[in-house]
């Protein structure tokens, strides 16, 4: 394990594949829980991330946090601005507000409803951030939206191509869903529960904040005293048969979305696979576009005939008939 994410309140910014679904009053993490979380991180040599909401913390919290080596994950327009922080834009529209500070890393979230603004927002954000993580809000994204998403990614790819062409020897812009795949030769996934865990405002540990923020399933995903789930093995890549047949190495393999869609930690929904495949395809074409401009970066991405690796598994199964394969 590498990192401990400390979610400071029930209104902390949602920085990944989840939305806050909290009811009732705001819950600020108890100061003692914060202290014990920090102690746990130091004892186990973990990096610390603190996830903030828009409201300033009580002074004792701030004083304690500032004594640690950490990274802040903050909402957009959070003050004081911090260049080293990871800034989260929960909607593309937030990017067009005034006074966006310069940050090393920004997280840009989008939904099906505002996806048309994604490329403009990402391109604008590239002026202020070296790296952008584009994250989808889970809101019923279907295959109709997929084509729209691909077009948005291609626009972003076009803009990044221009940036690379201009800077040539000073390439520094990264976008997770576009450039990461070029530099990966094996799976590089979120690994919630394995590489990082989350301490939530209720004082309990979860594989990631998403499980805390989902009241319907929260109690089933509290980590035990060893900071593990009872079925911890299902978080591991070796037990994800569908994923083991895939080469979308940049995919997050979001276990929270897996559970929400298929009821199993190790099984992605079809749309998750199609989205990752679309991103991989755009990456492949992006690299080819750069090659035409005599810019060589990363490694070749093979063309993938199976957007959904489950199709590949079923097709390769000798027990399936030709008609069944055609149906797939």
């Amino acid at each position, binding site marked *: 394990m590498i990192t401990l994410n400390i979610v400071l309140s029930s209104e902390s910014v949602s920085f990944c594949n989840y939305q806050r679904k909290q009811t009732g009053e705001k819950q600020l993490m108890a100061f003692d829980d914060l202290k014990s979380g920090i102690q746990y991180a130091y004892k186990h040599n973990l990096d610390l991330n603190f996830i903030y909401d828009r409201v300033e913390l009580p002074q004792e919290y701030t004083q304690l946090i500032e004594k640690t080596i950490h990274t802040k994950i903050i909402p957009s327009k959070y003050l004081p601005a911090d260049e080293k922080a990871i800034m989260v834009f929960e909607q593309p529209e937030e990017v067009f507000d005034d006074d966006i500070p310069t940050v090393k890393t920004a997280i840009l979230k989008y939904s099906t409803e505002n996806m048309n603004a994604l490329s403009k927002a990402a391109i604008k954000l590239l002026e202020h951030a070296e790296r952008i993580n584009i994250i989808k809000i889970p809101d019923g994204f279907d295959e109709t939206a997929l084509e729209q998403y691909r077009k948005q990614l291609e626009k972003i790819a076009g803009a990044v191509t221009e940036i690379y062409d201009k800077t040539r020897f000073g390439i520094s812009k990264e976008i997770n869903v576009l450039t990461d795949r070029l530099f990966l030769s094996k799976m590089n996934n979120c690994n919630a529960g394995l590489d990082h865990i989350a301490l939530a405002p209720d004082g309990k540990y979860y594989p990631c904040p998403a499980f805390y923020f989902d009241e319907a399933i929260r109690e089933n995903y509290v980590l035990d005293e060893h900071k593990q789930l*009872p079925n911890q093995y299902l978080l591991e890549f070796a037990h994800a*048969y569908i994923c083991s047949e895939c080469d979308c190495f940049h995919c997050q393999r979001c276990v929270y979305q897996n559970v929400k869609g*298929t009821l199993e*930690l190790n*099984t992605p929904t079809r749309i998750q696979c199609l989205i990752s495949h679309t991103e991989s395809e755009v990456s492949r074409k992006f690299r080819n576009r750069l090659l035409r401009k005599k810019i060589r970066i990363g490694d070749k991405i093979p063309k993938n005939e199976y957007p959904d690796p489950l199709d590949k598994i079923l097709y390769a199964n000798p*027990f399936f008939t030709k008609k069944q394969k055609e149906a797939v």
Partner: protein
Amino acid sequence: MAKKKTDEKPYKLGTRVKPWGEGNKTKTITFIVTEDCNFRCTYCYLVGKNSANKMSFDIAQKSVDYILDHPEHFSESQVIWEFIGGEPFLEIELIDRISDYIKIESYKKRSDWFENHMFNFSSNGSLYSEAPVQAYIEKNKEHLSIGISIDGNKAKHDQSRIYADGNGTYDDVVKNLPLWQKQFPTQGTKATFGREDLKYLKDSVLHLWELGIKQVAANVLFEDVWEIGDDKLLEEQLKQLADEVIEQKLWKEYNCTFFSETIGQPLRKDQLTTNWCGAGKMLAVGTDGTFYPCVRFAPYSSSSGKARPVGNIYDGIDSDRLRPFLSLTYFAQSSKECIECEVASGCAWCQGFNLDAAATDTVFRRATFICKMHKARCRANEYYWKKLKAVEKIERQALSPEGGKR
């Protein structure tokens, strides 16, 4: 040397029974027509039996319509329409209506299934000779398969297969046997063994064969019921049975699934990406029109309350809920110990029971309560095959882990 086909083998005992249809080309669709039963078998996994939940014809009709109108989910060229309970023959009139509707709609929609179908039943046999059941059999005999469960001799059967008042059912079932055997001469029976009736195993299997039932599908319970010494008793009973089989040369004509020519070998690498159970590749329809990957995932068969629907007749099949089942493999759900077991082949499980028994809500955890019983079965098989070779010079025609002859 080429592998011999089953019908060319010098023995029957231990060979795999070829099911109707061509395996992967056949879809099994199970209608749970009733959750009621007139028996109260002690080992029944249907822990939620009740007389309230029955399928209506409207639900059945909508189910058939959905299935026939969505070939993208049902691309197999053959179908087994299965009717199950509880005891399915309690609802023979409903079943008759459903069957007629299936045939008519299959014809109207020009489905391959009009010709390539089988209606299948697993019955306790008590109502078999009733007039409505016989009328149904006569109407559908060209496309019909009916299995009756007889657990063995009277002592064994009446210990576990009982009426609600506790009385045994052997006499009421066996009196229907001649009619059943006349109508379905090659059909086998299913026998289940728990702790209390292991001592009857040898005599029970021999008894079933004496009744003329040449194919006995027998198994021990998957549940956590086994205690120290049970494996030794199972092994002893199977060895005694093996002795009788060889003594009387019963291996020529009779079969019992306790014996297998492929059991007790390490898993091949290609087997690791397959699954023992077909849950997810079949479809069960609940009394209310909910879809399940198998009847064992319906609420009335779950002791833990962990049902797993995969859609319903109104919204259709939820493909995402089906995905875990389509990607279930030996490797994904087995412990290292099971994967590396020297006698892993033939060790069975029920996917639905796995979910029931798992500490968390997952199908990716294999229950292994039968481990010692499986190993006992392997030892008994080893004994049998060695003795068969020594006495009759007949070799077991099984594949070695490398794919060649053993």
